Structure formats: structure tokens, C-alpha cells
């Protein structure tokens, strides 16, 4: 056997370079050739939006746009925005994304702009603008409501859902007196965001009702989190926990476990996004579920809602036009919309769309409550869920959720929470 070290060295070196090249540089999975493209699409799975839902929806959109092959990417958690950042940092930014928070990506020029022509089918086309430009298809509205166990309310002698904040406190007291835990709130493990819903509601009623552009004013330095209005909103949450109306066990429950806890009757009220109505209809709990908007002090509506949630397209996609075409096809396909409404109880904001006739009672009641708030001009921003120019700086929503955990556990006062938010704001925007 002859040995040829030089040849071996060359082969080994080439192999190693190839290996190193494969690992460090093989990030661009999108290709485009002759009107055909392979595009990556970032999705996220939840108990409502499972793999089967996404696969079927992708297949329907692909059938409408010939030449596109879609490679589905799934965010490891519901935080698809955080995952998109990780992918971006390693040069693997997806071509198409759904439900992404465009903040940061938009300003950095990483997203393709939707034109007025692209947006002509949308009811509220300029719901989320960044410096006047739209980067996300505003295809649906979601709002935060209080879902309640009608049996528990009846047991506690509560005839009608609370219409003022005082009535909400009275109802909570009656439930507690009957040995029923008033509120189920989550926020454990990786799902700390799930503890935000009571604060989203109190900020809507106590801050945004009066000052709809409060966050924009915060950005301009005109208001602070330590201002009385915001502290009052945080104080309401702290008081609910202090009085034992919010079950502190929720601080260890994941989002899915929190929903299950409400289903299992571990609390009478469940402040949650309107998407819960899909779950309540599809898999009915052992009790009747009702819905009401978190009440203001005086009873006028202040419902936290956000319109957006649709597709964003990378400005660096191999074929931006084809990617936008596919994204719009996905977004505007009636069967996809019906599936999204069924699976996630979306209130679709596309002209001419009507939900399927066989929607469940909780969804119908949710939409009716939303329409009532809308007609009374009572829909306001949803704190920490806003997108567009008047949204929280990147990373601050997670910090707020961590602060709320401490607020709920009694380790932080409302004033301290306000000061904490101001200091985190300063850090996030330095």
C-alpha cells in the first residue's frame, strides 16, 4: 500500500472546509429560478393552531400560486418573534412569517412593504403603520375578554355579568365567599406572557380609555409609568391578588395548563384573548361559558383589541413578489379564513368575509361583545400586544410579564412596578 500524505492532507482539508462551510453557511434555504421558488414560512403551533391546521392551509395557498414550494418552519414556542430574531441572527430569516411583531424588523428594513393595492381588501389597512408604512397584513382582530363559568356565577348568586368595576369586585367577593376561586390567571414556565391579561384589561380601562395614544406619548417622554393613571391600573391587579381573587398557583402554570385549570373548574373567571372562544366551542367544558368585557369604573366600554396578526414578508426573500403573492393567497383564501376562525376564533378584518354559519355560541357571544364595544367607540389598544409606531420597545413586553409575576406574588407594589417599567424602558431604548 502506498501512502501519499499530501493527497490525504488535501482531501482532509477539503472535507473539513466543506463541513465547516456546510455548518456555517448553509443558511439560505430559499431559492428562485424561472418563476419557481422555495420559500420558508415561519408558523407557530398552539392547542388551537396545530400542525394539521397549518399543513392544510399551506397546501391550499400553494395550490393557488403555482411554482411555490413552501418549507414550513415551526417556532419552538408561541414566541415566534423571538425565534425569528434568532433565525435572523444566524442568517436564516424566514421568507414569510405569520403573527410576527414587526417592531424592529420593520425599522431595520428587513420586511417588504405592503402597497395600498395589496391592502385594498382589508377593512383597517393602516392598523399598524411604521413611519406611515405597512409591513403586516391586518387581516384579523383579537381582543381580551373575561370568560366565565355560568354555573359558578349562578352558585354565587350572580345574575348578570359585571358592568362596572365595583360589580366585578362584588362578584369576586361573592364567589370567594362560596369557596370558588374568582380568577384563573397563568404565567408559569416559558409562558410568562400569559399573566398579562388582567393588566391588559386594567390599562385599557384606566389608561388607554382616557389617553388612547398613551404609549406614543411615553415614547415622546410626555408620560411615565409612574404616573397616577398607570399606577392605578397596576394597583387594581395587585389588589385582586392581595384579596385572594387571583389564584397565585397560576404563576407556575403554563398557558395550556391555565386553560385546562379554567376548564377543570379551578376558577370562575378567565381573562383571556378572544381565541379562547374557539377552544370553548370546539371542546365544550362541563359548564356553560359566558363572556363579558372587563368593566370600567363607570361602565362605559374600553375593550383592549389589536388588529393585525397577518403575514409579513422578508425584504430579502429570493422572490419578494412571489412571496407576497403566496402570503396574500394564504391570507385571503376563504377556506383558510374559515379554518382560522374555527381554530382561533379570529374576528376577520377582510372586506366581504362572513364567518361560517355553524360557529359556536361562545364565539358568537364574543363577536357580539366586540361589535357592541366597537359601535360605542370603546375599542382601545391592547397593552404589550400593540404593534406599529405606538408599541413597546423590543423586549419590554417580556419584562412587563416578569414584573406582573412579582406584582401578583405581592413582592412588588404598583408604584414599584411603575418605576420598574420606567427603568426597563430606559434600558430597552438606550
Amino acid at each position, binding site marked *: 500500500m502506498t501512502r501519499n500524505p499530501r493527497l490525504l492532507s488535501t482531501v482532509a482539508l477539503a472535507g473539513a472546509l466543506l463541513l465547516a462551510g456546510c455548518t456555517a453557511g448553509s443558511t439560505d434555504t430559499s431559492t428562485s429560478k424561472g418563476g419557481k421558488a422555495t420559500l420558508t414560512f415561519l408558523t407557530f403551533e398552539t392547542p388551537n393552531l396545530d400542525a394539521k391546521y397549518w399543513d392544510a392551509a399551506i397546501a391550499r395557498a400553494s395550490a393557488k400560486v403555482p411554482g411555490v414550494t413552501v418549507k414550513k418552519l415551526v417556532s419552538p414556542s408561541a414566541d415566534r418573534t423571538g425565534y425569528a430574531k434568532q433565525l435572523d441572527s444566524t442568517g436564516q430569516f424566514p421568507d414569510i412569517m405569520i403573527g410576527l411583531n414587526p417592531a424592529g424588523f420593520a425599522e431595520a428594513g428587513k420586511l417588504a412593504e405592503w402597497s395600498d393595492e395589496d391592502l385594498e381588501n382589508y377593512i383597517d389597512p393602516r392598523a399598524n403603520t411604521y413611519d406611515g408604512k405597512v409591513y403586516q397584513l391586518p387581516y384579523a382582530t383579537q381582543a381580551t375578554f373575561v370568560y366565565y363559568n355560568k354555573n359558578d356565577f349562578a352558585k354565587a348568586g350572580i345574575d348578570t355579568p359585571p358592568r362596572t368595576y365595583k360589580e366585578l369586585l362584588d362578584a369576586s367577593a361573592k364567589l370567594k365567599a362560596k369557596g370558588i376561586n374568582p380568577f384563573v390567571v397563568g404565567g408559569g414556565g416559558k409562558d410568562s406572557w400569559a399573566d398579562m391579561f388582567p393588566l391588559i384589561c386594567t390599562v385599557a380601562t384606566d389608561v388607554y380609555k382616557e389617553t388612547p395614544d398613551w404609549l406614543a406619548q411615553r415614547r415622546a417622554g410626555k408620560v411615565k409609568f409612574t404616573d397616577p393613571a398607570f399606577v392605578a391600573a397596576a394597583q387594581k391587579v395587585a389588589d385582586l391578588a392581595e384579596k385572594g381573587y387571583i389564584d397565585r398557583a397560576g404563576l407556575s402554570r403554563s398557558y395550556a395548563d391555565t386553560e385546562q385549570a379554567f376548564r377543570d373548574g379551578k376558577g370562575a373567571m378567565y381573562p383571556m384573548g378572544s381565541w379562547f372562544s374557539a377552544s370553548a366551542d370546539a371542546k365544550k367544558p362541563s359548564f356553560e361559558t359566558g363572556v363579558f368585557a372587563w368593566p370600567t369604573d363607570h361602565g362605559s366600554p374600553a375593550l383592549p383589541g389589536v388588529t393585525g396578526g397577518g403575514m409579513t414578508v422578508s425584504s430579502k426573500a429570493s422572490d419578494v413578489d412571489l412571496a407576497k403573492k403566496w402570503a396574500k393567497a394564504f391570507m385571503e383564501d376563504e377556506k383558510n379564513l374559515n379554518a382560522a376562525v374555527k381554530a382561533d376564533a379570529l374576528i376577520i378584518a377582510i372586506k366581504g368575509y362572513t364567518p361560517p354559519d355553524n360557529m359556536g355560541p361562545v364565539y358568537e357571544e364574543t363577536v357580539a361583545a366586540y361589535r357592541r364595544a366597537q359601535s360605542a367607540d370603546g375599542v382601545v389598544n391592547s397593552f404589550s400586544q400593540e404593534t406599529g409606531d405606538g408599541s413597546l420597545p423590543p423586549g419590554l413586553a*417580556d419584562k412587563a410579564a416578569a414584573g406582573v409575576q412579582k406584582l401578583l406574588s405581592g413582592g412588588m407594589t404598583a408604584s414599584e412596578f411603575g418605576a420598574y417599567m420606567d427603568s426597563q424602558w430606559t434600558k430597552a431604548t438606550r
Partner: protein
Amino acid sequence: MDLKRSPRSLRRARSRDGLTRFAVFAAPGLLVYLALVLVPIGITTAYSFTNKNPFNPPTHWVGLDNLTSLVSDDEFRKALWNTIIITGIVTIVTNAGGLAIAMLLDRRGWLYNMLRSVFFVPVVLSAVVVSVIWQTILVDDGLLNSKLRQLGMSDPPGWLSNPDLALYTVSWVIAWQGIGFCVVIYLAGLQGIPQELHEAAAIDGCGPMMRFRHVTWPMLAPAVTINTVMSLIGGFKAYDQVQVLTNGGPGPGTTSTLAFQVVQTAFNGNHVGYASAMAVVMLVLVAAVSVIALGLLQKREVSS
């Protein structure tokens, strides 16, 4: 063969051949190490001197600003302190528990062979899987508290929801997963101790405790070194369990570790330059602690 070549040039040629052979076999590994470890460390170090924020270009050189900011950053100091506590607990629990279990399993028979595998299973599992399993046990209305309630405890602890407890709970989960590794290393160490030494000590009148102190413990010095250094490194790198079990909470930074803080700062806050400075500090700390521990423990190996 060239008979005229001097012994010196022959030695040189042999040495060259040796180097070539080394390059052939080591180059792939070295290049992968270079590409996946050294180059990222270099890039991270370079970023640590900048204000890099991929969503807010351009990037500027800021010198030591990031490092000096870390000194007064409460969140970073909290994460550092949490990391030290986790590392301390993990190192002590895995070593003490691992040694105790190894001594129990240092016997012949199919039962002991099977138990060795059982204790090693958590090491093979993903930290995420282990954390999810423990989460179902430790949540407020999970298996453990249900059992405690059945036993009459009306208000069992909030293992993951109580800010005063959560850090110790996370430490326990990390330690539980690491014990199996220590068991295997200690078992190998125990089986390497000549039986004659135990017999000689017994003949000299040593009881079990004296035999452990004067024979087993000194002879296990290399195993102690490996386990301690590996536990220290594992503790300093703690991330997965924190992410799954508590997401750094409950409350701001309650269970946040250095690695967790780096990821949060870089990917949630977009402050890549600042997060890189944290990562560099973490690297230096891990390296320093490991080198010091290794030096001290190896000295003990020689003296014992």
C-alpha cells in the same frame, strides 16, 4: 532510499512526516473546532466592544463601555449571583449524591447493573424533556403538591411560583439530571481501587468509616476532580431548565442565570453588543473557575 542523507535531515523528514500525518487526522476536527468554537468566540469578543443592535444600525465601537455598564447592572449582578448559587448547589448535590449512589451500586449482580443504567438515563435525556417532566411534578397543583395535600398539608409550597423557592427548585432539577454522570465516574473510580488496600486496612483494624476516609476517598481524587470541574462548568452554563421551568421568574430575574440573561438581552432586547459583553464575562469566569478548581484538585490528587 537516500543513503547519503544525514541523521539530522532524516530526523527532520520523520518529524515532517509526523506533522503531516497529524494534520491529516486532526485537520477536520480542528477546522470544525475553529469554525464552531474559536471563530464565534472571536466574533462575540469583537461585538462586546460595540453597541451592535441588528435592528438599530449602524454599529459603533464603544470600547469598554459595555463592560463598565455591567458592573452597575442590577439584572446582570442578580443573574451572576443566581448562577453562583445554582453552581454551588449543583456541584455539592451531584458530587455528594453521586458518590453515595455509586457506593450503594458498587456491588455485583444484575439488579445493580440495571440500577446503574437507570441512574444514567436522565443524563442521556434532553434538559428540556427533563424540565417538562419536572414541571408537571412541581407546579402548584402538580403531582408533588397533590400528594402533600393528601398527606394533610393544606398549603404546600409553591416550588416554581414562590420567588424565594424557585431558584432552589431549578437547582435541584439541574442537579438531579447531573447525578447520573457523577455516579458513573465515581463507580469507575471505586472499581479501580485495589481490593488489597481495603483488606489491608481491615486487617489493620479500620472500620468502614476509617476505610472510606483513608483508602476510598484519597483513591477517588481523580474522579472528584472530573466531577467537580464538570459540575462547575454545567452549573455556570445553566439555561434550558431555567427557560422551561421559570423563564427567569417568577418576578424579574428571580431565577435568571448568566446564560439566560445573555439570550434574553441579545434576542429579546436586541442588544447584541451588550449581550456579547456578558458572554465574554461568562466565558472568562467559567475558564477562571475551572482552571483554579482543576489546579487545586489536581494538587490534592498528587498529595493523596
